[in-house]
C-alpha cells in the first residue's frame, strides 16, 4: 500500500503541487503533492475543503420534514438521501422495513432504481467516458460530454436519453422532478397511475438494450489495455455493502456484509441498526472528512471501499438475468477473486445500471405499484436508522427525536466518506507510479483526477455557482519559490505563469 506517502518527513524542503479543486466531481476537492528535489513524490493527500454541516442543518427540525429537507444536501443524489431519511423515520413511527405496505416498498424500490439508473448513466456517459474513450492524457477540450456527442453521436444521445428516463421514473413516482414528497413516514404518499406506468413501459426495453450495450462497451474498453486498466490507481482493500439474506445484490434494504481483499467474509447479515458496534470513524487533522473503519480490524487495516465495485464484488449473484450474466463475466475477468482495479468501478457501475433497468421493467409489470394501501403506522420511537445503497455506496442516516418530534441528533455517513481512505490510497498509487520524476503537465495531472473520478465522489452539496471551479497547479521549489503555475479557469481556458 501507499500509506507511507500520507505524511512526509522534512516537509519544509519539498516542492508543493496543488490540484485545486478536482473537477467533474461534486463539490470541492484538492490534491496536494509534495515533491523532493528529484521530483519524487514524498507526500500525497486528497483534501476535502468544504465543511458540510449536514447534521447542524437537520437538527431542530421536525422529523416529518426530513425526506424533503435532506434532498437539498446534494444536487446529484437527492433521492438517495430522501429514501435513507424515509427509512429512518419509518422507525420513528414504529414501522420496520418488513412491515411497510407491499405497494409502498415496491414504489420506493422503483424510485431507487430510477435514481441509480440516471446517476450511473450520468457518470459513465457524461463524466467518465471522455477519459475512457479519448484517453486520460487527451486534449482538455475533448474531456466533456460535448466531445462525446461530437465524435460518438449515438452514444452521446443514448446517455442523454438514459439520464432523462431515470429522471422520468423519479418524477412519476415522487410527483416532482425535485423536492418530491414520494416517501413519507411509514410509506408513500402516492402510487403510480396506469397511464404513468404505461408511459414508462414504452421505453424500458430500449433502456435495457442500451444498458446491455454499455456493459459490452466498458468491458471492451477495459480489456483493450488490460495491464493498464488493471493497474491504474488499483489498491487492495476490504469492501462493504448491503446484500439480501441469500447473498444477492441488494440496493434498497439488506444486511451489512464486509469482505477482505482475499474475498474472505469479515462480517455478514449484520443488522445496520447496530452499525455503531461495527464501524467507527477516525478524525485526522489535515482534512474535514472522517476515515471510517471496521472496528474488528482496527484503524490501520479496517478501512474499506463501498459503491458499485464493492457491491458487485461482495454479492453472490444478481437476481436479474442480463446483469447476472454480466457479473459472471466480470468475476471471470478477476479469475473469481475480488476485483481490485479502481477503473473496474466503471464496469461494475454499468452492470448495476443494467440491473436497475431490468428491475424497473419487473416492477412496472407488477400491479402492486398501482396499489392504494400505502401507509402504515405503529408506536412512536425516539431513534431511527435508515441505510440504503446510494449510487456511490452505502448511505447511513441516523436520527434521534424528542417528545415534540424535533430532531435532537443526526448522524450521516455518506458513501464518499466511506471511500475517503480508498481515494487517498488511489491518489498515492497514481502519484507514486505515474507522476513521480516526470514533468508536471495538465494531462498528467488529469490522471489524478481520473483516479478520484472512478469513485464518482460527491464531495459537497448542490452548489453550482458558476465560476467556482477553477483548477490551480503550483510548482514550488525546495526554497519555497513559485517556479510554475497553471490555472484552469471555469471556461476551460488554461493560463500559465512561469517564473522558472
Amino acid at each position, binding site marked *: 500500500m501507499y500509506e507511507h506517502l500520507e505524511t512526509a518527513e522534512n516537509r519544509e524542503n519539498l516542492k508543493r503541487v496543488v490540484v485545486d479543486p478536482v*473537477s*467533474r*466531481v*461534486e463539490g470541492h476537492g484538492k490534491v496536494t503533492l509534495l515533491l523532493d528535489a528529484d521530483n519524487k513524490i514524498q507526500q500525497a493527500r486528497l483534501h476535502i475543503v468544504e465543511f*458540510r*454541516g*449536514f447534521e*447542524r*442543518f437537520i437538527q431542530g427540525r421536525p422529523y416529518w420534514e426530513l425526506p424533503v*429537507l435532506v434532498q*437539498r*444536501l446534494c*444536487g*446529484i443524489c*437527492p433521492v438517495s438521501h430522501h429514501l435513507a431519511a424515509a427509512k429512518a423515520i419509518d422507525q420513528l413511527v414504529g414501522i420496520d422495513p418488513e412491515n411497510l405496505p407491499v405497494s409502498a416498498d415496491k414504489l420506493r424500490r422503483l424510485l431507487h432504481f430510477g435514481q441509480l439508473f440516471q446517476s450511473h448513466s*450520468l457518470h459513465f*456517459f*457524461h*463524466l467518465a467516458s*471522455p477519459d475512457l474513450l479519448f484517453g486520460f492524457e487527451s486534449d*482538455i*477540450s475533448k*474531456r*466533456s*460530454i*460535448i466531445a462525446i*456527442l*461530437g465524435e460518438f*453521436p449515438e452514444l*452521446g*444521445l443514448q*446517455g*442523454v*436519453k438514459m*439520464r*432523462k428516463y431515470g*429522471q422520468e421514473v423519479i418524477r412519476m413516482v415522487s410527483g416532482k*422532478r*425535485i*423536492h418530491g414528497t414520494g416517501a413519507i413516514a411509514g410509506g408513500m404518499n402516492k402510487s403510480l397511475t396506469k397511464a404513468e406506468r404505461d408511459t414508462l413501459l414504452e421505453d424500458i426495453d430500449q433502456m435495457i438494450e442500451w444498458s446491455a450495450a454499455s456493459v459490452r462497451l466498458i468491458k471492451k474498453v477495459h480489456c483493450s489495455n488490460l495491464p493498464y486498466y488493471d493497474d491504474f490507481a488499483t489498491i487492495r482493500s476490504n469492501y462493504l455493502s448491503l446484500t439480501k439474506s441469500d447473498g444477492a445484490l441488494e440496493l434498497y434494504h439488506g444486511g451489512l456484509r464486509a469482505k477482505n481483499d482475499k474475498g474472505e467474509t469479515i462480517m455478514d447479515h449484520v443488522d445496520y441498526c447496530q452499525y455503531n458496534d461495527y464501524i467507527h470513524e477516525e478524525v485526522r487533522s489535515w482534512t474535514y472528512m472522517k476515515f471510517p473503519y471496521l472496528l474488528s480490524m482496527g484503524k490501520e487495516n479496517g478501512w474499506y471501499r463501498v459503491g458499485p465495485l464493492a457491491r458487485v464484488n461482495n454479492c453472490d449473484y444478481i437476481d436479474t438475468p442480463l446483469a447476472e450474466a454480466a457479473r459472471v463475466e466480470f468475476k471471470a475477468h478477476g479469475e473469481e477473486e475480488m476485483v481490485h482495479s479502481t477503473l473496474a468501478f466503471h464496469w461494475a457501475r454499468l452492470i448495476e445500471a443494467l440491473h436497475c433497468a431490468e428491475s424497473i421493467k419487473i416492477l412496472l409489470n407488477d400491479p402492486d405499484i398501482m396499489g392504494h394501501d400505502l401507509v402504515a403506522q405503529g408506536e412512536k420511537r425516539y431513534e431511527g436508522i435508515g441505510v440504503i445503497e446510494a449510487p456511490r455506496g452505502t448511505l447511513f442516516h441516523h436520527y434521534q427525536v424528542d417528545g415534540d418530534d424535533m430532531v435532537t441528533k443526526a448522524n450521516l455517513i455518506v458513501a464518499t466518506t466511506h471511500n475517503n481512505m480508498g481515494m487517498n490510497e488511489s491518489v498515492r498509487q497514481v502519484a507514486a507510479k505515474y507522476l513521480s520524476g516526470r514533468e508536471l503537465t495538465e494531462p498528467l495531472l488529469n490522471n489524478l483526477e481520473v483516479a478520484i473520478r472512478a469513485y464518482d465522489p460527491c464531495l459537497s*452539496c*448542490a*452548489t*453550482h*455557482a*458558476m*465560476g*467556482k*471551479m477553477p483548477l490551480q497547479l503550483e510548482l514550488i521549489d525546495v526554497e519555497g519559490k513559485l517556479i510554475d503555475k497553471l490555472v*484552469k*479557469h*471555469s*471556461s*476551460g*481556458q488554461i493560463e500559465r505563469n512561469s517564473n522558472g
Partner: protein
Amino acid sequence: MVKTVLLFGYGNLSRGDDALGPLLLEYVESHCNLEQIEILSDFQLQIEHALDLEDRSLVLFVDASVSCAGAFDFAAIEPSRDKSYTTHAMSPAAVLDVYQSIKKQMPPPCFLLSIKAEKLELGEGLSPQAKHNLDQASHFAARLLQQPDIKVWLQQASHGR
C-alpha cells in the same frame, strides 16, 4: 401541447443566495399569466435539460451569479462548447450545445437572467442584498414575460437588462 415559453430557474433553496433562481419562479407563478409559460426548476443544469428546449419559441434561464455586475444581468445566449470539464453542473450555453448536437438544429432563442448572489452556504437564508436584487429581477422578468417577443427580448438584452 408544449407551452411555447420556457422559464427554467435553477439552484438550491437551502443554500443561501443559490435559491435566487427558484425564488424568482415563485414570484412569476403568483404574478403572471402562465397560459403560454411553462415553469421548470432543478438543482443544476444537466444534459437531459436539452430535451426541455424542444418546441419552444423562447427560453429564459434564471440563475444566481456571484460575478454579476449589477443587481441582475440579462443576456442572449448561444450554443457554446463548454470547454470546462466541471460539467456536473453545466452552463446554459453548454446545454444549448448539447441540444444542437443531438437535434442537429439550432436551439430556440434562449436568454439568461443572472441575479447577483453573495453567500451560498448550506442552511443559510437569502442575504439582504440578494433579496433586494431578487425584487428587481422579479419585476423585470414579469414585464419581460408579458411580452414574449424575440425582438423585445433582444432589445432588452442589448441594454444588458
